[in-house]
């Protein structure tokens, strides 16, 4: 029943676990990780933008913390869009106990039919464990190079928090962050949404999402695709997402079993 793998774990003599032992082992490790059950994600491709960004963050930590000789445990995935992790992210990471990325819940194709000049994004922040305080939060969207525009043409990208969505009237918006971008620019645009994340955590009913508005140099509202902003049917490794950095504000004890 003993086997020795001819790979990186060759120094460890292994015994195949019986199914009962395996279940016990899984239960113990889940308890150590502080998880009530094994997560069952419906999408688990590691090549989407958010997992790739998170893996970059993971590798940033691992480089510092792991002892020599353990670096080969790091999974190497292709990074088509880089660098995703900014020096500011590294600073946030140093201070964080946990980082979480959130997928956009808005069906972008439906959104396209409904809103031509305003993009909507929604993120479910309700599954954050208790006792975690937000230290920083970012909304990230990819800006592609657009060949058909003049290189020196500029656009203004604005991110708004939706305050109210009254039926049969205009939505009430709060401007969070704004950025001027060149048509020739390419890379991730990062918007600070820390204050909004804190509001949403305290009052989940106020989480009505974010709106993105693109304006040309004449102040005319344009379709975000025109400015090269990727979402919806764009490549998976360039889809917008939200990332939140947390710090535990209390000592947590594992539950008694």
């Amino acid at each position, binding site marked *: 029943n003993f086997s020795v793998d001819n790979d990186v*774990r060759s*120094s*460890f003599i*292994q015994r195949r*676990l019986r199914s009962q032992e*395996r279940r016990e*082992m*899984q239960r113990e*490790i889940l308890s*150590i*990780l502080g998880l009530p059950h*094994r*997560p*069952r*994600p*419906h*999408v*688990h491709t*590691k090549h989407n933008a*958010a*997992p790739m960004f*998170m*893996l970059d*963050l*993971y590798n940033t*930590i*691992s480089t510092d*913390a*792991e*002892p020599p000789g*353990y670096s080969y*445990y*790091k*999974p190497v995935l292709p990074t088509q869009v880089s660098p995703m992790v900014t020096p500011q992210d590294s600073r946030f990471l140093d201070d*964080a*106990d*946990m*980082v*979480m*990325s*959130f*997928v956009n819940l808005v069906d972008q194709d439906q959104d396209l039919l409904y809103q031509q000049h305003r993009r909507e994004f929604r993120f*479910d922040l309700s*599954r954050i464990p208790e006792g975690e305080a937000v230290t920083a939060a970012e909304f990230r969207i990819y800006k592609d190079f657009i060949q058909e525009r003049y290189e020196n043409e500029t656009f203004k990208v604005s991110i708004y928090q939706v305050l109210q969505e009254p039926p049969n009237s205009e939505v009430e918006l709060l401007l969070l962050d704004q950025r001027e971008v060149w048509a020739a620019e390419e890379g991730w645009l990062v918007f600070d949404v820390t204050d909004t994340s804190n509001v949403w955590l305290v009052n989940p009913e106020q989480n009505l999402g974010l709106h993105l508005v693109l304006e040309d140099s004449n102040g005319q509202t344009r379709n975000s695709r025109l400015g090269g902003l990727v979402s919806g049917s764009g490549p998976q490794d360039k889809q917008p997402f939200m990332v939140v950095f947390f710090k535990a504000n209390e000592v947590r004890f594992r539950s008694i079993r």
Partner: protein
Amino acid sequence: SAHKGRQSNRSKPQRTVQDALKAVEAATDNLGISKEGCKKHELYVSFRDLGWQDWIIAPEGYAAYYCEGECAFPLNSYMNATNHAIVQTLVHFINPDTVPKPCCAPTQLHGISVLYFDDSSNVILKKYRNMVVRACGCH
């Protein structure tokens, strides 16, 4: 010694617990007591072997390690015993039925980070402190 005066006693250095321990070690060396002391042992926890590749992105597993071995005389240097462990061992030696031996446990721990999907396909990067045993010792 009852025959020696107070002055000569004062000039003589006092015997420490360590001196006493050395004497007991020397005495027990000949008794055939096991020398398999408290040591760090390897244990690799493989998330892949647990069938968790669909939700744990990284790492594939980690070297957890654990501590095992006797904390009894002779307490060799590699046991990294605390002063209290030495006293505990002495008292246990005198009264083994009521006083337990010191415990072989981690003296130095390190953290790891785990990257995983939750049920909603959000990604969580969590730093777990004190997950990997770096050194063991007798407490």
